[in-house]
């Protein structure tokens, strides 16, 4: 058997990965189930919603406006080669609503909110505060995790609505003031070309991404151990894994919506 020993690490890694996936799935299931189970904590849900939805506005707005501007500028320099400048409004609005609005806004939220959640919950874990919740007859999954998942799923789509509008506006500003487009023609082209499906698919993505960001923040925070260093690792893992999952699920949702 010893000549097969080299297979051991492969198998062990694979089994560990499966076990981790199983733990994550059970964690997500327990978190979701607790959203609908009383007692509810409306004050805390509101606090999380404000934290995600309101305080992320400046970051998301800045990201969106510059993305819209760059998009218009890049499209212009590219499309001018084959005299297709008139397609800029269409390119901007479709790219922003379908793709860049949800993805970039969620990545910013992952950095802001995912990290904060992992750090807060992780610190609570290593200082026994989560155990203390249990001894005070309070389910930590409900008190900490469920309401963050709820806030993530509901608030990130709202942020993306803002990002869509600001992003399209950024493209508009640049096209009007730098590239010399006619304002009314630009707006007309923008809304003529836009379909409900573009926006809806973007918002579905946003809900998925919001869930993933909150889930990663909570999961890594909840399972952090070993003091300050453990909390640091948890925070890093939360942001990195949320970002990667956003990009992967972005592909999957796009496939589901548009591959027909």
């Amino acid at each position, binding site marked *: 058997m010893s000549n097969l020993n080299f297979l051991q690490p492969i198998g062990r890694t694979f089994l560990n990965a499966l076990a981790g996936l199983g733990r994550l799935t059970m964690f997500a299931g327990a978190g979701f189930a607790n959203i609908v189970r009383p007692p509810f904590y409306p004050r805390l849900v509101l606090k999380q919603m404000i934290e995600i939805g309101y305080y992320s506005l400046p970051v998301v707005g800045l990201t969106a406006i510059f993305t819209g501007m760059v998009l218009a500028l890049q499209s212009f320099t590219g499309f001018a080669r084959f005299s297709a400048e008139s397609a800029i409004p269409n390119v901007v609005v479709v790219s922003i609503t379908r793709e860049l609005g949800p993805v970039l806004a969620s990545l910013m939220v992952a950095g802001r909110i995912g990290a904060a959640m992992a750090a807060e919950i992780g610190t609570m874990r290593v200082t*026994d505060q989560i155990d203390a919740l249990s001894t*005070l007859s309070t389910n930590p999954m409900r008190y900490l995790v469920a309401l963050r998942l709820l806030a993530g799923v509901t608030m990130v789509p709202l942020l993306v609505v803002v990002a869509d509008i600001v992003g399209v506006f950024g493209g508009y500003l640049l096209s009007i003031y730098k590239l010399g487009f006619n304002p009314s023609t630009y707006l007309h082209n923008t809304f003529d070309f836009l379909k409900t499906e573009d926006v809806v698919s973007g918002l579905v993505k946003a809900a998925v991404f919001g869930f993933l960001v909150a889930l990663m923040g909570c999961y890594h925070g909840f399972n952090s151990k070993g003091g300050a260093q453990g909390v640091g690792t948890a925070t890093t893992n939360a942001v990195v894994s949320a970002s990667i999952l956003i990009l992967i699920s972005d592909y999957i949702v796009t496939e589901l919506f548009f591959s027909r």
Partner: protein
Amino acid sequence: MIANGKASGTPKIEIRGLTKAFGPKQVLRGIDLDVGQRESLVVIGGSGTGKSVLIKCVLGLIEPDSGSIKVDGEETIGLHNADRERVMRKFGMLFQGGALFDSLSVWENVAFGLMSADGVGRREAKEAALRNLAAVGLGPEVGELFPAELSGGMQKRVALARAIARKPEIIFFDEPTTGLDPIMADVINDLINKCVGSLGATALSITHDMSSVRRIAHRVAMIHEGRIIWQGPIGEIDRSGNDYVEQFIHGRAEGPIQMPVRPL
């Protein structure tokens, strides 16, 4: 007061054959321990001998590998949801580091269980919290502060107030005097005696502070390498006839307990 713990009736907590391993590390190797009604039992033992794991198993925070834990004669291992919460309702716990919620003010910490789990209104819960703070010698002005603004001793007292706020039947104390100066440690010991006495509660503590043991224990059990190797009333601890206990209570480096330290 029950001095020997062998009183009649079911013990408040009855632990049998409790084992727990973390990976290859066997922490508890079959713990048998009874805590009588209204008795204060202190478990002593060195660091890493399984004291904290034992207490977390009883609290249901860690699931043991095998064995039985009965509270008031009712098996608690394997209880879930509503049943688990009903049993947990009997418990209060003072964590080693206090484990105060740093996002909440002091009075909200103390009133947390009342508001979150027992459905007591904010105003009423605040009054109860201030009464409990007074019971541990803290004025109402402390209630408005946040845990980070308090000294270590004050944090411990707030944590004690939180542990007793819901009038638990059983209170667990995890290293209640660790990290405190000797005078504050004695204040905490006093408060523990007072609170446990006035609630008529059963107390299970873990510590390695011998002066604390002598102040709060009715009975002492010593844990070593995951087993209870000696137990008896506090009065007998100085004539236990057990080398391990002798070494521990006198704090000697030489003896049957070998610390994993390389010689210099």
